[in-house]
Structures are given as structure tokens and as C-alpha cells.
């Protein structure tokens, strides 16, 4: 009669996958965190620049009478857009888009890791 090695094998597999999943999750979290922080810093620079230029005052138009808003909203928004430091804005948006692309590209890995974590937690709960 042969011994049942499945438990020993699966324990090695679980240990291996746990390390692998943790490594992946930590790495991806660090990258995501850095990208989000970088985009927040960039957007805050955009806000500071708009503050310095007093560009927010342009938006007070939208508190005016509807007829005035209807007359001037396009010009106001165009002027506001021109006052935004667009380079910084695109960098900030680019960082977030990059993060979204990364998340999309690694969606298979995330699904796979979810399945693995379900098995791992089930395995550990059974105390094997």
C-alpha cells in the first residue's frame, strides 16, 4: 500500500503560493500607492497654481443668473482650461491611467491569486 503524500505535497504548494501571492500583493500595492501619491502631489501642484493665478474666481460665474451663465459659460470654461497647468494635469491623469492599465494587464494574475488564496485559507482552516 502506498503512503498518502498528497498532504505533504499540498503543504509545500500552499507555502510556496502564500509567499508568491504575498510578494505579488505587496509589490503591486507599493507600486499603486506610489502612483496614487505621485498623482495626488501633481494634482495638488495644479491646485496651488490655480490658487496663485486666482483662476477659481472664474468659476463664480456659475453662481450668477441663468441668463448670464448661458451667455458666458463657454468662454469662462475655455479661459479656465487655459489657466490650468496642462502639462502637470496630463502627468497626473497619466499616472492614474497607467495604474488602471497595470490593473487591467494583471487582471488574470489577480483572479488567479484570488483562487489560490481561497484554497490556502481553506487548507489552513482544515488545519492540514
Amino acid at each position, binding site marked *: 500500500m502506498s*503512503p498518502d503524500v498528497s498532504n*505533504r*505535497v*499540498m503543504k509545500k*504548494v500552499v507555502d510556496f503560493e502564500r509567499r508568491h501571492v504575498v510578494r505579488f500583493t505587496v509589490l503591486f500595492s507599493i507600486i499603486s500607492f506610489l502612483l496614487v501619491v505621485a498623482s495626488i502631489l501633481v494634482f495638488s501642484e495644479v491646485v496651488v497654481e490655480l490658487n496663485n493665478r486666482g483662476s477659481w474666481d472664474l468659476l463664480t460665474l456659475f453662481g450668477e443668473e441663468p441668463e448670464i451663465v448661458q451667455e458666458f459659460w463657454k468662454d469662462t470654461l475655455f479661459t479656465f482650461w487655459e489657466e490650468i497647468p496642462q502639462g502637470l494635469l496630463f502627468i497626473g491623469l497619466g499616472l492614474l491611467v497607467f495604474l488602471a492599465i497595470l490593473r487591467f494587464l494583471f487582471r488574470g494574475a489577480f483572479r488567479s491569486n484570488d483562487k489560490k488564496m481561497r484554497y490556502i485559507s481553506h487548507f489552513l482552516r482544515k488545519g492540514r
Partner: protein
Amino acid sequence: MKYREDEQLIRLVQKGDVDAFEELVVRYQQRLFFFVRRIVGDPRDAEEVVTDAFFQLYRTITRVDTSRRFSTYLFSIAKNTALSLLRRRKDARPLDFAADVEADEVIYSRLVNDTQRREILEALTQLTDAQRMAIMYYYFDELSYEEVSDKMGIPLNTVRTHLRRAKEALRGFLHES
């Protein structure tokens, strides 16, 4: 539970389904153990080799080509792991050992599922009665050389001869198939 083919299970494991891998382990562990034990001798060593072979398989699972016979790949890993163990222990084996191992690998890897087992059974019809009986006792009933000798009432060396010739013949039939 519905029976799933090896290729199906491999594809699931490649997508992260660890349950499917456990199903493969349970399916193959017995035959793999017997195969490895023939090589290394000691049952504890055989357990260790089988465990390592399965783990090695898991780590390389993304490289497994599901269009080819999976059992051959698994038994090849196990054979190499077992031979590495013997080399590390500087275990000298007789000259015909390598041929024996190769024959065992071909036969054991086909004993696992019904379809492949049928190939072996068909090939057995090509053997003489004595060779067929020796093969059945050795591979299907997992008897040792001594036990086969007792069962058949023939000397040990005759058993070895029958098995060697039968393995050579089977290897030829199975490679052709």
C-alpha cells in the same frame, strides 16, 4: 465528483485552481510511488522523491504542454528526481538499471487511467504466457521479484529474464502506439 481529464485539470491549475492540482496528486501518487520505489528502493526515500516531483511539477506547471501526454512528463520528472537522489548518495546500480527504469517509466505512466491502461493490456496479448503473467504480477499486483518467483514457481533469475524481455517487447509496442 465528475471525472476530469488530465489536460482539463492542467489547464485549470495553470489558471490558479489549486484544487485541480490536488486532484492530480491524488490520481497519480500511488503509481508514482511504486515507480519511484522501484528505483530508489527505500519507501521513505520514495515518499520524499514523489513529494519533490509533484512540487517540481507544480512550479513548472505553466510550461506543461496540454497537447502532449501529461503522465509522461510527470514520470520523467520523478525519474530524474530519483536518479539525482541516487547520484547524490553515490548509489551504483547495475548496467541494465537505466533500461529497466525507462521501461518502468513507459509502463507505469500508462497505468494511471483507463484509456492508457487499455493500451498496456492490448500490448500484453503480444507476449508469451509466462512474460504476461510476470508483468501482471509485477506491475498490476505490485509484487517483488521474489514474490513473483514464489507465485509462478520459477527461479528468481527466470523471473528477471521474463520481465526484461517483456519490458523490451512492451516498450517497442507502446512506442509504436
